[in-house]
């Protein structure tokens, strides 16, 4: 390649916004990206930092080895294990996720994604309450009331406002920002809160009480006067908010981890979803999670499509069982249950609770990651893979469950997650003596 090569409409997978309007300019040597037009700061950093580096493609016990040997060693570990667990999956393609589910299935193991440590409680709430939802396009074009609860898009999802929400010009709201009411609920005045028309500062750990009071007011039920003292939000403010919500034509509540990972967890999200459902008595109202990782939504979709459940699924008895708290990776590690772990595109050794990390040191770990991580450093077998979106094509899901095809820009000398997982699966089938009928 001698000329600079431009890729239009590339897809950024750094955050759950999955912006698909990026213009990438590839350096003449084809080894790095020199410009990422339209991307936000985070997205730019994500694209520009990828260089073709020379880590070994595979390591066993920290020693360089061939891909074949590493795959064989990994397959042997997993086949020998009595409680093998597969974890991660939010930063890879749906095609790779599908192979990971197949591996867990053939091993009669456990499969879980990073959803269990971010919006897992939301998944449980969807199951319990149901989900009244819309695509981001619909929200952009129609929503005249937008509420953000427990999230800070300005810093975590920088283009969320302009692409999908109140800063965008809607087909049916040509005045854009002026036609919309924007509310932010959070425990502190974040940068996102500064952009809102109304900001509700809730005392930490009181989201559930506020949501519960809002639900009661929407339904015209009793709310105790102590609410202001408890939550920091006065009855007048709550009543005013309820009137605005009832009066809008299309309302949306976006919620983040400030809701799903604080005290009350799935009940907080369930309360919020139930609030959206209650409001449908009066107007059209939806609730959407704001997801973090690039393809965590894809992980939910693929695992649900293949097993019937979104995360925390166990195949020990030959059929899928779902039980967050029992089969979620943090818990199976903290209780010392898993005896081998396959990690795809995640770094549990850096962000799990101490007890879970201690167990990671006791069991054989296999990692697939484009770069060395804390987990890969303690891994028995570590694979270096090509980064998805930058060097690997495939499908990813935006946070509103819209599937988008990736447009990779630079060639990588490393195999993709999908390729390694597929070869690992074949090896496992061979070791277990499972014969599959040719398609």
């Amino acid at each position, binding site marked *: 390649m001698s000329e600079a090569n431009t890729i239009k409409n590339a897809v950024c997978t750094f955050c759950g916004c999955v912006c698909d309007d990026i213009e990438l300019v590839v350096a003449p040597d084809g080894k790095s990206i020199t410009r990422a037009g339209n991307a936000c700061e985070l997205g730019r950093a994500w694209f520009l930092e990828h260089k073709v580096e020379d880590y070994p493609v595979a390591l066993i016990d920290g020693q360089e080895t061939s891909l074949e040997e590493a795959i064989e060693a990994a397959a042997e570990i997993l086949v020998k*294990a*009595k*409680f*093998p667990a597969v974890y991660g999956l939010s930063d890879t393609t749906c095609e790779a996720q599908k192979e990971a589910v197949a591996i867990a299935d053939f*091993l*009669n*193991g456990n499969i879980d994604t990073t959803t269990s440590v971010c919006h897992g409680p939301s998944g*449980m709430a969807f*199951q*319990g309450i149901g989900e009244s939802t819309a695509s981001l396009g619909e929200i952009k074009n129609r929503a005249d009331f937008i509420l953000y609860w427990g999230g800070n898009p300005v810093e975590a999802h920088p283009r969320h406002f302009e692409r999908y929400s109140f800063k965008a010009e809607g087909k049916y709201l040509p005045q854009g920002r002026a036609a919309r009411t924007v509310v932010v609920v959070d425990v502190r005045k974040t940068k996102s809160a500064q952009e809102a028309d109304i900001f509700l500062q809730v005392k930490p750990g009181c989201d*559930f*009480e506020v949501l*519960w*009071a809002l*639900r*009661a007011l929407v*339904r015209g*039920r*009793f*709310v*105790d006067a*102590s*609410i202001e003292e*408890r939550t920091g939000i006065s009855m007048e403010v709550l009543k005013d908010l309820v009137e605005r919500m009832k009066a809008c034509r299309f309302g949306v509540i976006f919620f983040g981890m400030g809701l799903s990972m604080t*005290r*009350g967890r799935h*009940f907080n999200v369930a309360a919020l979803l139930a609030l959206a459902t209650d409001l449908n008595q009066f107007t059209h109202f939806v609730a959407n999670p704001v997801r973090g990782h690039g393809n965590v939504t894809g992980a939910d979709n693929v695992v649900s499509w293949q097993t019937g459940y979104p995360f925390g699924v166990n*195949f*020990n*008895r030959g059929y899928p069982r*779902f*039980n*967050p*708290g*029992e089969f979620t990776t943090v818990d199976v590690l903290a*209780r010392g*249950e*898993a*005896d081998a772990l396959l990690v795809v595109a995640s770094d549990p050794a850096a962000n799990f609770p101490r007890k879970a990390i201690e167990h990671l040191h006791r069991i054989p770990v296999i990692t697939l990651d484009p770069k060395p991580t804390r987990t890969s450093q303690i891994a028995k077998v570590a694979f270096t893979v090509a980064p998805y979106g930058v060097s690997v094509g495939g499908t990813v899901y935006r946070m509103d469950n819209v599937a988008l095809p990736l447009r990779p820009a630079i060639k990588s000398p490393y195999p993709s997650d999908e390729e390694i997982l597929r070869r690992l699966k074949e090896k496992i089938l061979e070791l277990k003596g499972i014969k599959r009928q040719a398609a």
Partner: protein
Amino acid sequence: MRLSLHTAPEVPLETDCLCPDQLLGKSAKEIAKLLVFHGNQRAELGEFFHIQEGAQNGTVTVEGDLAKVKQVGAGMSDGKLRIVGNVGAHLGAEMRGGEIVVEGSAGDWVGREMRGGRITILGDAGHLVGSAVRGAAVGMTGGEIFILGSAKNEVGNGMRRGLIAIAGDSGDFTGVNLKAGTVVVLGNLGLRSGAGMVRGTILSTQPAELLPTFCYDTTYRPPIVRTLLLYLRRQGFTIEDVYINGPYRRFSGDAIELNKGEILLYAG
């Protein structure tokens, strides 16, 4: 009959067969052959337990640290199961009758979706005592669960009938989505007790902060409290006279639902 753990499982062991219904009337040899799941492997009960036949008095005693053993007594309908040591998750799940006594602590999901019988835990219990499985609306529909230590979150989630009594504290969301039935906590209730409750009773002898959708009704001495607490005293709970006789403040809720549930808090 006595079973003692001789080999600790390395990974969770699921033993639905550890249940008097399936053990009584069988010889030690037959019992040793019963199917269990050791992680993803099929195994036999005898690989983990010594089995000692004894007088057929309807009691099965299991000894050892069973913290990694799940589903003990699941589906049980008759007889008595005594566990000397700790036990893992799903103890007495979907149990219909008979009695389980644990001389130790239990994991999560004790008596999940239980329909009858009695479970007594002398130590502590984990989350979701007597509750529904995820995705189901109805938890325990009958029977009694007595915990002489403390329990964690979501005690009685979706419970429809029966009695849960806890000598110590309970975690958050005690009696959440309660349809009916009674939850007694002699220690402190966690936050958000009775959220979404439709009917049923939650009683505590300690002060508690309630959700804004619970409304104070009255302070009174309902005869049922006396009857209930005296009954619990006979079952081995230590309850001071003041709580048995004392006045209780009654709150009704959850206003978001039918508002026919009640939370009784001691008002001494």
